[in-house]
């Protein structure tokens, strides 16, 4: 209502029937019906993404914490810094309490202090939530860590929409775009828990800084922790009709979609773009040559992520290819349980399969 409109002459008549009210008792939901409507079986519910349940931490929910503790067992230089993420570091705290540094809710200080530790000869692993570590602290990451070539390991958990339940403040969908522009920074994104472990191991001796973009809720891709060659992608499924390239949750979605497509006679190659920087141009160009049809899948803004990089590389090399990019749109994103958000934005096996069919003209 604007100022020019006259207020209603009278308020609602309390005696008049409410037009929205049910007319008869029969139309009122029972208590059971209300509960069923509020919590139907099919309804996605938020899981506790911060849980540190020892019962299933070992391989599933906390590969980062378990593996960092193992790395610390093997190398006295390994320390871990937490910006209020200490639950993840339970194993390290138990075995090497002196090498655990809590910095509280102070991300910028945490990252710059890690740079100081690295300059003094340590190998600091910084645990942070992706939106508050990578995005809030881009400048510390750039100026103190990356520009100085310091071996800080930046572990960004809860990336993408993993905390999508909490609000748009908790989305981390611009972090790859930011991280990939930072000179000297290696940017990797594990496709599942085993890949997380494999990446932490494979990069342990890298002399420069490494940014790990950790996804939650991934589908299984690797049966055991793989050894990743620096800067190289992994072909996780051969195929001849198109190439689906993903990272993080995108790899498992692509694999699942490829199964569906295979039943329809479409053979999709799936590449794990585990290294976003350095970018495996050779693998991309080879795939473009093999299938000529490329679909990227990522839990990231459509600007600046894998789809953008692929388009840049193809353009620079004047390689023609049919390209489609499945990513999050550059609009105000919805808030909700991650699985519901993924479904909303087509980041599902079915969503990937639909885009793949369109790309091959099926």
């Amino acid at each position, binding site marked *: 209502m604007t100022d020019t409109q006259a207020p209603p002459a009278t308020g609602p008549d309390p005696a008049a029937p409410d037009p929205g009210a049910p007319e008869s008792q029969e139309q009122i939901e029972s208590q059971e019906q209300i509960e069923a409507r509020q919590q139907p079986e099919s309804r996605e519910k938020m899981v506790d993404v911060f849980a540190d349940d020892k019962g299933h931490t070992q391989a599933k929910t906390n590969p980062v914490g378990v593996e960092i503790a193992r790395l610390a067992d093997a190398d006295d230089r390994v320390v871990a810094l937490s910006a209020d993420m200490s639950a993840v570091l339970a194993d390290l705290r138990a075995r090497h309490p002196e090498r655990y540094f809590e*910095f509280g809710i102070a991300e*910028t*200080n945490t990252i*710059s*202090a890690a740079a*100081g530790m690295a*300059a*003094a*000869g340590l190998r600091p692993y910084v645990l942070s939530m992706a939106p508050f570590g990578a995005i809030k602290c881009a400048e510390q990451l750039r100026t*103190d860590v990356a520009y100085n070539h310091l071996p800080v390991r930046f572990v960004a958990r809860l990336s993408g929409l993993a905390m999508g339940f909490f609000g748009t403040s908790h989305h981390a969908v611009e972090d790859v775009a930011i991280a990939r522009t930072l000179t000297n920074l290696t940017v990797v994104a594990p496709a599942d828990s085993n890949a997380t472990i494999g990446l932490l191991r494979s990069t342990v001796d890298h002399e420069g800084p490494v940014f790990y973009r950790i996804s939650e809720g991934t589908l299984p891709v690797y049966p055991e922790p793989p050894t990743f060659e620096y800067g190289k992608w992994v072909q996780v499924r051969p195929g001849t009709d198109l190439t689906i390239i993903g990272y993080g949750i995108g790899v498992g979605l692509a694999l699942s979609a490829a199964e569906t497509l295979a039943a329809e006679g479409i053979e999709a190659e799936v590449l794990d773009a585990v290294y976003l920087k350095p970018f495996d141009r050779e693998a991309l160009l080879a795939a473009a040559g093999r299938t000529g049809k490329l679909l990227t899948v990522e839990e990231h803004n459509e600007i600046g992520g894998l789809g953008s990089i692929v388009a840049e590389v193809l353009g620079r090399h004047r390689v023609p290819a049919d390209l489609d990019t499945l990513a999050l749109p550059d609009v105000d994103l919805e808030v909700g349980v991650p699985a519901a958000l993924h479904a909303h934005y087509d980041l599902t096996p079915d969503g990937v399969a639909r885009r793949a069919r369109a790309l091959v003209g099926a």
Partner: protein
Amino acid sequence: MTATVEKPDSETVELERGRPVDHAELARRADWIRLRTIDLIDQAGLGHYSSTFSCAEIFSVLYYHSLRLRPGQPDWADRDRFLLGKGHVATGLWPVYADLGYYPADWLETFGQIGSPLNDHPNMRLAPGVDFSSGSLGHNLSVGLGMSLAGRLTGRDYRTFVLTGDGEIQEGQVWEAIMAAGHYRLGGGLVAIVDANGFSGHGPTSDAINIESVADRFTAFGWQAVEVDGHDVAALCATFDALPPVGEGRPVCVVARTRKGKGLAMMEESPQSWHLGHLTPEQRDRARAEIEARMR
């Protein structure tokens, strides 16, 4: 300048903490830093005069008396660290590092040119002697905190000194670092020196946002703070000589009360005019004469 301070001649020559040096010599050394700063800025065409002049005595005392160093071995693990939070005054350090033998004196001739290892703000990757890069205000106290924690973890007794501007402490990250350092009780392992010259780039610091009382604020965050005349070399020597042991108790904040543009009348009178600038040849010659007269 005829320096009488000792110079290293090999990798292992060590400059110990609190080495004996005449206070008058340290004061002359500070003026020499001012002279050389004028020369370098003249060569480059632009520079931060008055902010450098306010900390010339601090540079002199640290590098010619207080810091434990091996200039022939810049990455020596047990050296004391010095971080230049207010990175815009690196010009004043370049002649010091050359004089101590971190790099050849002719590197100074490259200052201001593309490809020079000596930038207007220091880069640890390029210039030996620089313990950490700076330029973005507010970062280096955090970095120093990390270095100090690393020293304690590895059982080394080096000290980490961080020079911040008084305007720099308006940065929020500085207070994250102050809070954490107070929590970790690094004692004399972490020393923040606030160059309290009272001015930022565009005017009096506390006219923008009041920072006083600096000492009370640090103290409230778990530090011990001491106020000192930042141009009194004897007082600075005594302050650094009396630092508490490394790794125990409250870290130390030295609030160095200084004058922006100290040592040149025209800059003391109008400090913010000379935060960033370039002296004309006539001004330069008069400035050099004023400083040289004091050094004789």
